[in-house]
């Protein structure tokens, strides 16, 4: 992989990264490969985030740089783009709660790390989670929430998934600032976390896909 491109993305050099992408294309590089290289830089950022060397702004800015690179490359990529293959994840903020900052960062990081992520949005009713599980057959379901009201919504959502006979087919993670082991037990989830790094660890473990 191009160390220069990776360094530019990880170093938050937006203009430099775009210049490198264009010069790589001019030199005849395969756009699909350039895109994969850029994505690999995002996993480097994810690792740095986990080691607390970078923080949310760098994940957001990295995502933004990726967006620019993808917009440049995608029209040039012929045929089907590489399909995310580490597993399918359905994720959303539970009913009654409209907070999305944490969820969005988790979605971004899972996406760039090769998962097929389906973001159901905010204030998501139980039935919508159940329908998405039936349709998409994810290995992992993520429930997000910031309010204490979300504890009961998470519990009810997990019960709803069980009532639909789907509980054995998925691993369920809950996330958000007030979530801890106690809340995890209360809701009946399989795991919990407070940030994107924790979500990545759980997803890798549950899908059996090393990062």
């Amino acid at each position: 992989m191009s160390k220069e491109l990776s360094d530019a993305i990880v170093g938050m050099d937006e203009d430099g990264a775009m210049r490198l992408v264009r010069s790589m294309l001019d030199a005849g590089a395969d756009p699909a490969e350039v895109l994969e290289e850029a994505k690999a830089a995002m996993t480097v950022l994810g690792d740095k985030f986990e080691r607390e060397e970078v923080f949310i702004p760098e994940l957001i800015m990295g995502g933004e740089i990726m967006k620019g690179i993808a917009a440049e490359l995608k029209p040039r990529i012929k045929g089907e783009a590489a399909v995310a293959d580490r597993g399918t994840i359905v994720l959303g903020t539970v009913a009654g709660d409209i907070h999305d900052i944490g969820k969005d960062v988790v979605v971004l990081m899972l996406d760039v790390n090769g998962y097929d992520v389906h973001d159901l949005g905010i204030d998501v009713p139980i039935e919508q989670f159940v329908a998405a599980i039936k349709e998409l057959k994810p290995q992992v379901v993520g429930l997000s929430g910031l309010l204490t009201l979300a504890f009961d919504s998470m519990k009810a959502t997990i019960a709803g998934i069980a009532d639909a006979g789907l509980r054995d087919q998925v691993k369920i993670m809950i996330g958000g600032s007030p979530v801890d082991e106690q809340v995890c037990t209360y809701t009946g989830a399989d795991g919990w976390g407070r940030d994107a790094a924790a979500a990545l660890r759980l997803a890798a473990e549950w899908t059996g896909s090393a990062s």
Partner: protein
Amino acid sequence: MTPTPEELYAQREQRFNDVVALKKPDRVPIMPLYVHNFPTLIKGISNKDAGYDHETRWQSTKEATLRFGWNFAPTNDVLASDFFAAYGNKQMMWAGEEGGLADDAPFQWVEDEYVKADELAEFVADPNGFTFNKILPRMGSRLEGLGQIPLPPLYWFSNSYYLQVLGNMLGIPPLKAALQAMLDIAEAQENTNAANGKYLQEMKDLGYPPTWGAALMPAFDVVSDTFRSLRGSTLDMYRQPDTLLQAIDVMQDATIGLLHAAYAVTGIPRQFIPMHKGAGGFMSDEQFARFYWPTFKALIEASVDAGITPMPLFEGDYTPRLEFLAELPPGKVAAHFDRIDRKKFKEVCGDVLCFWGNVPSSLLVTGTPQQVKDDVKELVDLFGDTGLILDGPGGIPDQAKPENVEALVEAVEEFGVL
């Protein structure tokens, strides 16, 4: 002899002041920094009804204060739903709003880019005009008319001839509608103030000081939460850091102005400072030192200089920022914590800041009274002698079990009388 309400009032205020000054109080006070819907939910009142019925909301807060042994009369921080409705608030969603949240949901912010990236410099150049013409119309659907008129210098209207210009301008239908919305805002505020004033007077008569007078956000949070959103302010840090800093400076002037104005109106020598985007994980120490800390620290110092005890709520995990917090004026700040490493805090900030809050939501909502008591025991052992106030991570959570909130009182009786 039974103490008079005046004596109780002075005693409770002294207890709080002692804790802030890092002196050992007579007993550990229990003080919700604020309450939202806990007092009404335990009476079976929906969040929708609580948002519109100010009298019931404040009276429920009074009942909860007496029932759960709180040291001060807490501020009920549920913002009035009729106030939101008066201008068609687009920055919030609430129960009872058309197409809004379910009846049992609390009001919630809708973070968005209300100020676009290329407009930030425009705000800095003309904060008044930009706020009037761009921000207010985007904040409320009923204020959209304000976007349609030029904001002339007031001396345009400096004699009776010229005043006709004003008459014509005010007659534009969208502006007339916006002016009507302004009157509705005033009326809604009067309604909630009346119920609030009654509550505060009744609590004073019972010997309870009010918790705080007004809420002031640090300048960075105003810009990030309500102008640019987390994404927007993040991109600004990288793409236009100087303009971002200028906008923060403009908001800092406004914040300090509001600090003094609010104190002049309420006379309450305590102010709440909710903090959002400076928490651990939200930025690096370098970014914190550049974009967040200077204006926050200046706000704390301005508050202390004005004789107002600042009550910052360090929302999120502030363990990574303890070295910064140790720079705050010792014994002057009522520091409230959501999540933090208690032992590290004691080590780094124990002789600078008191310790308020931090009993986890998970315990208060899903735990048992014994778990709550065990947690309080740990807090009293660590901070009882050097300044401790009991509370949840940010007030009493809406869904807290009453028996767990009662457990705080029992815990104080057991090991919090010092």
